[in-house]
């Protein structure tokens, strides 16, 4: 995931965004090449500096020996860490790995973390597991790519790692080889991960802030550590490391924007603790957009987590935005009022976008959640600098997992041509968010199409 973001960033900053990426090797921008060269040099140096651990002697744990309450706690923690999403291929067995993360530089595949001895982590001792989680080194001494967020997991306590270990070691072992990573040189060399660590990875230990409540500290620990929320919600530098001084200012994930959670939050209404708890456990609250895209699996996992931990997360996240609450509530009400007058386009509005809105959107999106859907003036997607979240939602819809409850919206992919979708986007952006139209809607559409054409089996 991190590399995907790094690559997206490289392309953005290099102002080099080819509409189609037929061959990842062919389109590496100059700036990226510089970064890669740096990584190659540092990687070579790092190998001589960093102690590549000896493989641990295989101390096979006995699955039956784990305490049931420890396993249960591990299940909760694994849900907070959203481990299952990355470590499960679409339609695959849980935790058996093989989910691909595409990027212009190649594809990374998640590993099998079931206790299968040959293809999973069945031979890993607790010490091996701890080392992988906290330091990003596997029992063979190989440096793991930071797509595995050990820069966050380094904060996780011994007790919690032990519980997660107990949980994964008691899952069904699945024999499944993950496909080999397909990365370009020099990222294909493990040494590049070592170099990255030298530059950006710091082993940290969680220490509570005595000035804050116990609940806030619990939230800090979960959000910054296992939850690795910043992996998406914090912007990354050109080499894919989170910009620590812009923590939670909004980042990118899988072609979506993960909005800012701090004072830069674009949401018209503030994220209060209660709204966050509601949202994180169900995917919807009354005044914000429903969870979609990469946030959908996070919410699915958090719906399994005890409310007190979700509340702690909410307390910490709500504290990230330090603007006065009352003013923000007032601003939200102003936006909501705009929606009321916007409920249906005025007779004078004859733009094609307005007509599409009336025929396709207004049926549901009128009245605050009256018909289940959100008034569009409260939409976060419409307030973002780029249209990609909006385009994703209109084209793909929002679909809960099979047989489960969750936010839902139909896909309009077949109904709207690209030109019509662009007209609708312009209308919604200017009419509901009150902002100037986005510059390059067709360009963003092309990007999402090239991404989709690389994926297989999507609906």
């Amino acid at each position, binding site marked *: 995931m991190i590399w995907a973001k790094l690559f997206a960033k490289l392309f953005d900053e290099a102002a080099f965004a080819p509409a189609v990426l037929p061959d990842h090797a062919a389109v590496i921008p100059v700036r990226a090449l510089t970064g890669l060269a740096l990584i190659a040099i540092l990687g070579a140096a790092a190998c001589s500096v960093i102690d590549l651990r000896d493989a641990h002697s295989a101390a096979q744990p006995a699955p039956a020996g784990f305490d049931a309450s420890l396993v249960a706690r591990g299940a909760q923690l694994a849900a907070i860490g959203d481990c299952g999403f990355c470590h499960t291929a679409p*339609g695959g067995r849980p935790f058996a790995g093989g989910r691909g993360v595409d990027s212009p530089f190649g594809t990374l595949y998640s590993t099998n973390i079931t206790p299968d001895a040959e293809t999973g982590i069945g031979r890993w001792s607790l010490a091996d597991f701890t080392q992988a989680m906290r330091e990003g080194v596997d029992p063979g001494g190989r440096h793991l790519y930071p797509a595995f967020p050990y820069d966050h997991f380094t904060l996780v306590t011994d007790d919690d790692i032990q519980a997660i270990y107990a949980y994964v070691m008691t899952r069904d072992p699945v024999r499944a080889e993950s496909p080999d990573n397909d990365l370009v040189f020099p990222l294909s060399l493990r040494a590049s991960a070592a170099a990255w660590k030298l530059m950006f990875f710091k082993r940290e230990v969680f220490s509570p802030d005595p000035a804050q409540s116990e609940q806030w500290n619990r939230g800090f620990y979960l959000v910054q550590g296992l939850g690795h929320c910043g992996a998406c919600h914090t912007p990354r530098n050109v080499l894919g490391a989170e910009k620590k001084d812009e923590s939670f200012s909004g980042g990118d994930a899988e072609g979506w924007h993960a909005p800012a959670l701090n004072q830069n939050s674009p949401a018209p209404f503030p994220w209060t603790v209660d709204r966050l708890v509601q949202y994180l456990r169900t995917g919807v609250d009354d005044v914000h957009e429903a969870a979609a895209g990469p946030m959908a699996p996070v919410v699915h996992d958090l719906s399994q987590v005890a409310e007190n931990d979700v509340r702690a997360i909410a307390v910490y996240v709500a504290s990230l935005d330090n603007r006065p609450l009352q003013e923000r509530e007032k601003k939200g009400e102003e936006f909501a009022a705009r929606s009321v007058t916007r409920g249906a386009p005025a007779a004078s509005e004859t733009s094609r976008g307005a*007509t*599409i809105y009336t*025929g396709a959107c207004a*049926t549901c999106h009128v009245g605050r959640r009256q018909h289940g859907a959100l008034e569009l003036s409260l939409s976060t997607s419409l307030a973002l600098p780029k249209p990609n979240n909006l385009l994703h939602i209109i084209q793909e819809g929002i679909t809960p997992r099979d047989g489960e409850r969750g936010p839902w919206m*139909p896909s309009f992919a*077949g109904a709207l*041509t690209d030109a019509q979708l662009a007209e609708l986007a312009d209308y919604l952006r200017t009419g509901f968010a009150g902002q100037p139209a986005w510059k390059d809607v067709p360009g963003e559409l092309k990007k999402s199409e090239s991404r989709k054409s690389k994926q297989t089996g999507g*609906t």
Partner: protein
Amino acid sequence: MITLNVNGKIENVDADPGTPLLYVLRDHLRLNGAKYGCGLGQCGACTVLIDDEAVFSCLTPISLLAERKITTVEGLGTIAEPGVLQRAFIGEQAAQCGYCIPGMMMRAQALLRANPGATDAEIRRHMRPNLCRCGTHMRILRAIKRAGSEMTSAGAKPAAKKIAGAAK
């Protein structure tokens, strides 16, 4: 006045540009195959093809459809000469109350046109947006599979084509 191409026939319709296609099909053109279920795009009973892709006609304003090709279940065949999917649904007795069936056939048609050899898993995934309250899902799945194999066997595919005229 807006001009629509429905099942290969050019139709001039006098309706507000924001009117959902479903209303125009049923009320203006008397094509009653597509059904009104929920009006919210949640059930799929109103599904038709726009340029070979399945869409909810209850949420598609006609202003979007000038110069695009609309196919309804009536475009798949006639009672005298049913199309491949229609024959397969009859063969498997896939309808109980029948209300969801035209939508089911149209969504299936979108899949089979592109991929007549679709696997069971692909069919299930593709058909997700369409609901059936009677519980004939297993028969519906069998009917789609049957139509797919008929289409892949030589010469069967053009049957729908011939009858549908402009359905290509």
